[in-house]
């Protein structure tokens, strides 16, 4: 069993690392070499593809747009989730069941099902009141904030549910209002969970493809995922250029996760993972 386990662990790690390293290797290849010997490991190593990809579709602009969209979007989803999650876990809210169904119902609806009516509704709003959330970064932030508020609510609901009630009751007895209790006691305790909620929201919203593709029709702003999706239609799929573009777009999120890893582990996986 001992050797069997070691072999399984090594094979699993190699299986995970190989595709990642392969993308890196391809990104470092010259185009000519990729065409003649796509599967060769040796050969030249060049950084030219990164510069070429960066200039080919304005990846810098796409990454900036994505950040401008996902950071407020993540803050909004987290804000809604913290408030609703706290209320549903700790406060006597009327029609709690119905509210819960309403919040969770949002999770079961595929984004693909909603993009068309979402877009139409945005056009309709623009025609009737002159202002709309279509074709603007703040508009997409709003849509993302609402779409990803559902799981945020569930996340914070389960977090606040585990918070001991006596902490809050002490504040109640001191005569604090519901809002004061929330702001002075519950919120400070929830800071690590809020950090995790923000990071996961940024990741999920950054990864979302379809809304980014549809809700920004003029192309004035482009999300990073849209840039990657359209990259393959403009250039040959699977070449060193695409590999380099893929790495560039994956990098910001990779770094965010690495920075936040400590919190993520303890918050999501209950702190019970020990060596």
């Amino acid at each position, binding site marked *: 069993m001992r050797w069997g386990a070691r072999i399984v662990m090594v094979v699993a790690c190699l299986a995970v690392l190989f595709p990642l390293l392969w993308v890196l290797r391809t990104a470092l290849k010259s185009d000519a070499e990729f065409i003649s010997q796509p*599967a060769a490991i040796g050969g030249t190593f060049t950084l030219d593809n990164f510069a070429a990809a960066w200039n080919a579709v304005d990846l810098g602009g796409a990454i900036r747009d994505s950040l401008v969209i996902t950071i407020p979007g993540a803050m909004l989803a987290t804000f809604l989730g913290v408030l609703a999650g706290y209320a549903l876990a700790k406060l006597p809210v009327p029609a709690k069941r119905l509210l819960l169904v309403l919040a969770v119902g949002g999770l079961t609806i595929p984004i693909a099902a909603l993009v068309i009516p979402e877009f139409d509704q945005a056009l309709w709003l623009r025609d009737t009141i002159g202002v709309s959330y279509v074709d603007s970064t703040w508009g997409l932030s*709003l849509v993302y904030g609402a779409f990803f508020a559902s799981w945020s609510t569930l996340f914070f609901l389960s977090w606040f549910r585990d918070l001991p009630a006596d902490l809050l009751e002490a504040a109640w007895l001191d005569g604090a209002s519901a809002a004061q209790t929330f702001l002075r006691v519950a919120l400070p305790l929830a800071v690590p969970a809020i950090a995790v909620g923000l990071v996961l929201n940024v990741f999920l919203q950054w990864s979302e493809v379809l809304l980014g593709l549809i809700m920004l029709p003029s192309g004035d702003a482009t999300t990073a995922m849209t840039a990657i999706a359209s990259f393959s239609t403009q250039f040959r799929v699977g070449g060193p250029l695409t590999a380099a573009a893929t790495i560039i777009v994956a990098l910001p999120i990779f770094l965010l996760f690495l920075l936040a890893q400590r919190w993520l582990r303890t918050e999501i996986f209950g702190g019970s993972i020990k060596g």
Partner: protein
Amino acid sequence: MLFVAPLVVLLLIFVYAPIGRLVYYAFTTYDGLKPPQWVGLDNFAFLASWPDFRRAIGNTVVLTLGVIVWVGLPFLLAVIIHGRRSANLVRAILFLPALLPALIVGRAFRLVLAEQGPINEALRGLGLDLLAQPWLASETWVLPTIITVIAWATMGTGVLLYSAGLASLSSDYVEAALVDGARWRQLVWHIYRPALGPVTRFWLLLLTIGTVTSFFPWILGLTQGGPGTASVTLDYQVYRSGVQTSRLGLASAIALVGVLVVAVLLVVQLVMRRVRGSDEW
């Protein structure tokens, strides 16, 4: 009530109002330019006899069966890794793909699984030419390949969840079973599997809402539905009919069916939970 109001308002505007529109469009023909025209059940009648739609349902069902792999593999790996010296390092490596968006994972695997890519070349180099396949361009192999890629991407998260479950498990049971002479296979099936039931239910729920309702980014990244319609899922068909060919009424009808399928899946999970008499995830 004030705490919940912002959520409710935004959900009503951005999620539930569009759902209302979706339901209406499903009973119309609509091209996005002229106003929608009521056609009753025509869209659904058309879907019932449309081979592409049946294919999309079939593909979605087959891919959904992938949960057996997406749950089973991390479970076994977590059990194998549990308590070993390099466990933390292995878990950290396995978690790396979880940091990548589905679209990016798809792009990576298009390189790795290409006709002349490293996997096929390695197989040919070993003299196993017969095993080399156009993985993503073959009618037979495309769905199993997609299931495998999703397994690759989700494995790390599953392993972390199961490891957390294992860490909080009392070792008494395991030791007692070992004293009774239990084999590894019996240990896994009779001790670990039931003890980790709550983790499995939670992980299943995550996979259902995170992956099964949105195969779209995987399909877009890996195959764009091809070859032909061999890997078109329900949500990808919505994209094809609605966004690519502007049959918005038809696309809405497909989307509505998709919403119902997910609802059924969730109800099944809920019922199973009730039947087993446990209210935990």
